[in-house]
């Protein structure tokens, strides 16, 4: 008895030592809360504290490089995979906080920003947990932590009708899908008698269950995950929320929230539904490759085709982000380490280019008061640097060399072709041709119309331009020299499994 207890406390202490990044986030959250109550320079102070907290979190996170072990009795896993995902999430959160400093919509709005920054920290906390969650209940809890923060954030500009509508839709869709997911989880528990992902995997291997309930349970769980990554047909909330929410929040949701979603999908499929080896042999009779492929095809095709008709930049980028989730799902569908590496590489690159595009939309909206594509006419001449940078981000989103987006696509298609899904790869590349059309529409407006525009020059401050360059330069460099990123991704391909 004594022995067990000391074992338990020993493990707990060790687990806590690996929980420092997350703990820092909680502390940041609390400090922001108090600072917001006590200080008079409310808006700025909260931002700086959050930024500092995120940076400290990052430093603590870096010390976990290479660590691979389960913590808290199997609730949370710290491994190179979750490390990669958390770095990506944290980087995008830091960037978004920096974006928020210059956001007119936030800074000049009538509300206190303390809560805004607090909620961002909360959101990051939820995403951190989800990246490592290896227990069904814990997955559910992490998703709810994320969701509650993001519901409030997306409706943050309360006076805006658009934002309230967005937030409302988000809540309703979110509640329904997590309800379905929890139902699926209970079925899994009933089938296997455990909530731990690795144990589920082992149970399924040793004691095969019937196909039908297994399929049903996992499809229901997949609904919850699909909602997080906005895969079709669970994407309906995305355009409204992305359009209605403050741009900074949209940017964060489109990158970090998706990253966490993909992290959990990969971990779930790997640990619970395959034998956990290098080759990810699927357990049972269900062809999960096919199920996810179908989801991927639907997601990218619908995302791309609907994006063609959008005239609002935020909405266009919302559909584009759906399409990108589709490309990523292609890589997930192959269910092996190659696909996983592709997801990691793609995500890091997607973070740079997508945040870049959103940031420029934010900057332009602050200056011109419009997110309408028509108001981008002549922008390339009115603000050359911003024009070039946006072109670069859009070209990269299309996936053309010599930009980073091409490298991301290259790895995704490599994984898909390697696994023998040629038909899927063909649909994927044709989709990227479709996407060219709507991305280039923006470029067309910026450069082809109103050539040498005599319109008023739009001048941006130096820090703002620096931030743009900070995103643009890696987008270009990673297109030409991606060795280090690929090395990092391949070093991050280890899940900790109990097998």
């Amino acid at each position, binding site marked *: 008895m004594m022995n067990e207890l000391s074992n338990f406390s020993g493990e707990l202490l060790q687990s806590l030592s690996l929980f420092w990044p997350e703990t820092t986030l909680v502390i940041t959250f609390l400090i922001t809360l108090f600072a917001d109550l006590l200080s008079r320079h409310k808006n700025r102070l909260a931002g700086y504290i959050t930024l500092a907290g995120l940076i400290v979190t990052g430093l603590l996170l870096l010390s976990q490089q290479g660590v691979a072990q389960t913590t808290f009795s199997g609730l949370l896993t710290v491994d190179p995979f979750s490390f990669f995902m958390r770095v990506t999430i944290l980087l995008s959160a830091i960037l978004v906080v920096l974006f928020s400093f210059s956001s007119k919509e936030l800074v000049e709005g009538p509300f206190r920003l303390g809560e805004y920054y607090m909620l961002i920290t909360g959101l990051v906390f939820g995403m951190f947990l989800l990246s490592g969650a290896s227990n069904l209940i814990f997955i559910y809890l992490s998703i709810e932590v994320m969701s509650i923060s993001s519901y409030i954030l997306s409706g943050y500009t309360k006076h805006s009708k658009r934002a309230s509508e967005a937030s409302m839709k988000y809540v309703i869709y979110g509640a329904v899908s997590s309800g379905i997911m929890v139902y699926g989880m209970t079925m899994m528990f009933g089938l296997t008698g455990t909530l731990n992902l690795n144990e589920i995997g082992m149970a399924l291997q040793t004691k095969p269950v019937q196909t039908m309930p297994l399929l049903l349970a996992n499809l229901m769980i997949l609904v919850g995950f699909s909602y997080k990554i906005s895969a079709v047909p669970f994407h309906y909330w995305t355009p409204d929320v992305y359009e209605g929410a403050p741009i900074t929040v949209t940017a964060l949701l489109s990158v970090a929230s998706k990253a966490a979603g993909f992290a959990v999908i990969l971990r779930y499929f790997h640990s619970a539904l395959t034998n956990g080896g290098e080759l990810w042999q699927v357990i049972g009779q269900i062809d999960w490759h096919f199920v996810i492929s179908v989801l991927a095809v639907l997601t990218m095709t619908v995302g791309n085709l609907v994006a063609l008709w959008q005239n609002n930049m935020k909405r266009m980028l919302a559909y584009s982000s759906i399409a990108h989730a589709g490309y990523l799902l292609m890589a997930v569908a192959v269910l092996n380490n190659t696909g996983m590496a592709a997801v990691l590489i793609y995500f890091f690159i997607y973070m740079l280019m997508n945040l870049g595009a959103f940031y420029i939309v934010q900057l332009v909206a602050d200056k011109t008061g419009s997110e309408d594509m028509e108001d981008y006419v002549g922008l390339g001449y009115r603000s050359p640097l911003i024009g070039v940078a946006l072109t670069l981000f859009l070209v990269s989103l299309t996936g*053309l060399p010599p930009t980073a987006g091409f490298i991301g696509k290259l790895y995704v298609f*490599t994984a898909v072709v390697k696994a023998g899904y040629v038909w899927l790869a063909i649909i994927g*590349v044709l989709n*990227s*041709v479709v996407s060219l059309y709507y991305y280039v529409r923006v470029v067309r407006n910026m450069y*082809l119309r109103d*050539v*040498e525009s005599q319109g008023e020059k739009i001048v941006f401050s130096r820090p703002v331009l620096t931030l743009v360059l900070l995103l643009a330069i890696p987008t270009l460099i990673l297109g030409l020299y*991606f*060795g280090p990123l690929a090395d990092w991704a391949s070093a991050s391909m280890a899940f900790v499994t109990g097998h």
Partner: protein
Amino acid sequence: MNFPILTWITFLPLLGMLIILLIPSGKDEKGQELSKTIIRWIAAGVTFIQLILALVIFFNYNKGLTGVNDPASFQFVEKISWINAELPMIGNIRIEYFLGLDGLSVPMVLLTAIISFLAIFPSFGINKAVKGYFAMYLLLDLGMMGVFLALDFFLFYIFWELMLLPMYFLIGIWGGPRKEYAAIKFFIYTLVGSVVMLLVMIGLYHSTGTFNIIEMMDQGRFLPDSIFGGSGTTLRYVAFMGLFIGFAIKVPVFPFHTWLPDAHVEAPTPISVILAGVLLKMGAYGMLRIAFPIFPDAFAYFQTLIAWIGMVSIVYGALCALGQHKVGKRDFKKLIAYSSVSHMGLVILGLASMRPEGVTGAIFQMFNHGIITAMLFMIVGVIYDRAHTRGLDDFGGLARKMPVYTGIMTIAFFAAIGLPGMSGFISEVLVFLGAFKAYPVLTVVSGLSIILGAGYMLWALQKIFFGQLPEKWQGPWDPTGKLYKTDDVNLREMVALIPLGILVIFLGVYPNPVLHLMTGSVNSFIELMKPVLN
């Protein structure tokens, strides 16, 4: 050779572009004019140095070495490891910065350098967003040069795609009334081709474990159980067709040619020159360098189909060109665009024959077509700048008003028809000689195009130069005398046109300098393809 001449010839335009971007636009009107002039001359200077480098290569090129599938006999080779990333299961992704020359690429490099330099002169007429124009122009130049020099598939692909965006802007910003449509059509057509190429490239990488084009030609390198392993498998046929279509869109051959007339009609003169002069050649070059030698078995399977496609393009292009006299807007540029489809069809027919004469003729035809069509488009540009119309029926009797112009134009027209004594004649004869051995009937039908070609060209010549000068063109082109001091071609236009005219006649009389460049390589190319041909 220590001096990395191929890197210089490729990346010199990038250097020029950076310099151009750093030049301030000037505050007042005078300053702006000065800035524009400086930018133009920098672009001219950069492309001139590029031409000099191309000539250095030309004179130092060893005609005895063959290249193609023998890595040891490539010349001016530069090879550095570029990306080397280890991934579990994918294995090592190894990409090399690998440039080199053989007889298949030397003529193309020469052509690119010549056209890029000479097309600068018509570009002097561009007056809006000059800085952007020349920056894009040089970027395009970089991409074209790179495509002809790259021997690593990945590198090739990057250069290939690098040209899309500048071309999109060049047509889209400085083009005619329907420029947006033409630009996006060009972009999407080419992109469809290149994404398919991307998939084949990835497949090839898995099958051979390398991006090195020369090593991919070695059928022994293909892993037996990989997707492109074996010989004559369906997947290999599909992959070959994917590559072929990707390249065919660029050539362009029927039925993938519809972007070309639009792009040509809307593009500004110098861009039409580059498009017809260099860009179209990249498609045929890609077939020669990549599609055919890597999939010889698939080539053998589709050989007859490719010959048919060539024949249809030849005849269809010629008929469409002839049709420009009677239907539509009767656009001079469209006529030349369709004649390009016809002439590039000859290249395809020559390649399909896989006979030494045919392949030599095809490559020489690529070179000649580049020179001749560049001339034709510049000629159209001359008249369009003055009259602001390109309608074939809008002119007449220009011979008296512009005698020198008429002379130059006659040379170009006769060269395009393939008159003996002009370069076009030699390459057409070679193509027909080779093709006749392999496909007599198709060749005879294709021969019709010579008559059709004479028809549409001479008809155009007659409409524009002979007969009565219309009332509205009676006076000088430019009454103020500011833009055009004489009614005839001016010095700037002559500088661009005369060298091309000289080349056309010189190579028509004495084609050996160019022909000898490729003989060795063509022979070893055919040797490589022979085992699978029947």
